[in-house]
């Protein structure tokens, strides 16, 4: 018996609405300990299809709660078995996974190797292959069910990143996915994760309830609500009023004001590397390494961190995230005189420089501060604001002519982090093109010997740091407001794993 009966779209909508009313009305009558945990985010949940995850949070956080993947990434970058019990790289191009027995999807379907085959194959067809990176990321060529509890992943080339990409390859109830219209699937997810989907009111909230028969035991928090509250001050006010338990996306300046009798603030060193990208397709001076070094010496990153970032983060010291970075690399020291000397040496002084920013939180202040430092070494910075969609287009077309405020990748995987500056990476937004660097990264990514690979990666890491393709800034601090009844250690990569949270007392 399936728990989600096959209804047509309209009936389903009514069912969800009726449920929302039921959940909304008896607020006061629920016992205090049953009050759901509310997570408030700036962004809207747009789709809940497990193979169309557009952002780590909030969509990713909901998907992580409702679905399971074969392995899961821990906060420190290590891998934890989930739907897979164990794995081995049987041959360089064949990975074998033993699956967890007796797992059921929320609608009663059983989890087995065929479910994995169906889901992974779905990720390889349009429109899912545009969002899901499993196949291109791992050079996957075939998914084989060896027996009901064993699955083989065959790749066309040896890969070192199989587990990394499997972390976000979620497995949904196969029969449901097969027999249901795509728009119903994207609004009514059925997985095997720690939470079951209850209802979704678009632009407002997604409601989940604990899965009592989860293979790892029912999660301690019974009800979870993901709310969409775009206004930062409203998120903070709700937090202080006790109607929100996790307020996502606080800024260093608002962190102090978010503390109250009902709430506290937790900051984690984020993994998103904030920088001013330097365009290699724009004005000529930027193609000179000395100019790029001058820009890095001109900007007083530590003062910006102490003031704008409230001292809540550290300067970037590599484009590879810890713990895999080379500790011998050090941030560029602030030295305006040296910057001026470098400009003079390169023969480009007082040129006009576009400083572009999008509508990301804090982008304007940072860009204005950077511009004022560049003005101080005699350049003529020209601030330009872009609407979000337009900014993304400019990035993808490598169309910026000067420098632009951007953040890259909250992930922990050196080869994936380094690949963006290779010439054929589609997300290489500053148009850096160096065959030597391309070769270093490529060689590392097919080197299966871990010790050798580490040496190659370090070589590439040191090389690109010295190239100054960015004006290096800092790791974006992730600041969360937490209600005092909640125990939850936030992760550095935006995801909220609410099944790891507990209530106090």
């Amino acid at each position, binding site marked *: 018996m399936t728990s989600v009966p096959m209804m047509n*779209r309209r009936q389903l*909508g009514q069912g969800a609405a009726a449920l929302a009313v039921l959940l*909304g009305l008896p*607020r006061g009558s629920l016992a205090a300990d049953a009050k759901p945990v509310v997570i408030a985010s700036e962004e*809207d949940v*747009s*789709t809940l*299809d497990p193979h*169309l995850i*557009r952002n780590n949070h909030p969509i990713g956080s909901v998907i992580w709660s409702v679905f399971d993947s074969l392995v899961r990434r821990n906060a420190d970058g290590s891998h934890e078995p989930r739907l897979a019990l164990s794995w081995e790289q049987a041959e360089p191009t064949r990975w074998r996974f033993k699956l967890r027995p007796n797992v059921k999807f929320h609608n009663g379907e059983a989890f087995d190797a065929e479910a994995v085959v169906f889901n992974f194959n779905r990720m390889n*067809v*349009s*429109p899912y*292959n*545009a*969002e899901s*990176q499993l196949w*291109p*990321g791992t050079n996957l060529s075939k998914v084989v069910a060896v027996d009901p509890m064993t699955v083989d992943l065959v790749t066309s080339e040896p890969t070192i990143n199989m587990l990394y990409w499997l972390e976000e390859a979620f497995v949904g109830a196969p029969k449901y996915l097969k027999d249901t219209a*795509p*728009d119903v699937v*994207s*609004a009514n997810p059925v997985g095997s994760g720690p939470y079951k989907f209850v209802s979704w*009111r*678009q*632009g*407002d*909230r997604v409601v989940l309830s604990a899965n009592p028969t989860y293979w790892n035991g029912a999660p301690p928090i019974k009800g979870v609500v993901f*709310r*969409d*509250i*775009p*206004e930062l*001050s*409203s998120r903070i*006010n*709700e937090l*202080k*009023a006790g*109607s929100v338990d996790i307020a996502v996306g606080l800024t260093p300046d608002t962190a102090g004001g978010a503390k109250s009798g009902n709430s506290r603030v937790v900051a984690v060193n984020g993994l998103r590397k904030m920088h001013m990208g330097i365009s290699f397709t724009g004005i000529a001076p930027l193609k000179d390494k000395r100019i790029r070094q001058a820009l890095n010496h001109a900007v007083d990153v530590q003062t910006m961190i102490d003031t704008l970032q409230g001292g809540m983060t550290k300067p970037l010291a590599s484009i590879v995230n810890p713990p895999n970075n080379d500790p011998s690399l050090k941030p560029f020291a602030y030295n305006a005189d040296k910057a001026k000397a470098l400009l003079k040496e390169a023969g480009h002084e007082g040129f006009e420089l576009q400083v572009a920013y999008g509508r990301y939180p804090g982008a304007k202040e940072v860009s204005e501060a950077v511009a004022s430092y560049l003005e101080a070494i005699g350049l003529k910075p020209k601030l330009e604001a872009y*609407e*979000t*969609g*337009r900014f*993304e*287009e400019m*990035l*993808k*077309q490598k169309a910026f002519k000067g420098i632009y405020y951007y953040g890259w990748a909250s992930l922990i995987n050196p080869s994936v982090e380094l690949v963006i500056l290779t010439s054929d*990476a*589609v*997300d290489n*937004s500053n148009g850096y093109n160096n065959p030597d660097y391309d070769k270093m990264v490529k060689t590392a990514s097919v080197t299966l010997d871990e010790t050798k690979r580490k040496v190659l990666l370090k070589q590439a890491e040191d090389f690109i740091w010295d190239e100054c393709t960015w004006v290096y800034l800092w790791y974006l601090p992730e600041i969360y407001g937490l209600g005092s009844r909640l125990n939850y250690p936030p992760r550095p990569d935006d995801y909220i794993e609410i099944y790891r949270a507990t209530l106090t007392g």
Partner: protein
Amino acid sequence: MSFATFMVAQTTGDPITLLVPANATEAARAALRTHLGLDRPVPVQYALFVLHAVQGDLGSSFVYKQHVLDLVVNRLGATFELALVAFAIALVLGVGLGVLAALNRNGMVDLAVTGFTMIGLAIPPFWLGLILIIVFAVRLQILPVSGSDTAVSVILPAVTLSLQSTARLARLLRSSMIEVLEADYIRTARAKGLWRCRVLWVHAFRNALIPLVTMAGLELGDLISSAVVIEAIFAWPGIGRLAITAVEQRDFPLLQGAVLVAAICFVVINLVVDWLYTRIDPRVVLR
């Protein structure tokens, strides 16, 4: 109208670049283009859009992967709820204050009402919204900060949204009422000794309503449009935020659907206004 939106949408960029992660492969991009029907020539796309639209099918949203009509209708309800509550507040308060001021012309009540409308018109509504949240939801804690889960949730956003309309309607009614009260036929009626209340209601109020009806129709439209800003502050799940997302993500079907549905609503409002015109002022004949 739909054509204009369609063309403007087409010129603003390729939705594919925004729909897929930066590291999606070229083959996947091409497949998605085909999947969404964006590989067809633009005139064919438009013809298909119209053909489906007249059958009540506005297509599927690129981002939400759901039927546009469902998405829009879902959200439109919330926006209408907010706009109608604000409209009711504006109508009752605006007309009441306006008449009161006109009848007590140049008195203390008039001064108070005029002062209120002047200040009301001068305050940026989104700014007022933020202040109201701090006062009523954070300091006094008598109303919810945001959201739409309880019946009282609508109070703060609706009051914020209605302030400008209230002030405009009050001003309008005050001045048109004064104008009518001074008109010859009212003076005549008074001279003939007609009972004051009867003059007021049958002649004066009815005539003073003519500009109000024009304005009220516009106000309702304006409220729906202004709700976009207010929805963001109060996390109200209306169509405004849906449309902002659609613009930012270049979600053409959603944008077209939202504009089309909103347009139909406006046209209906305008028809009602025109009809009311003929009911109130017999001199106007609809052709």
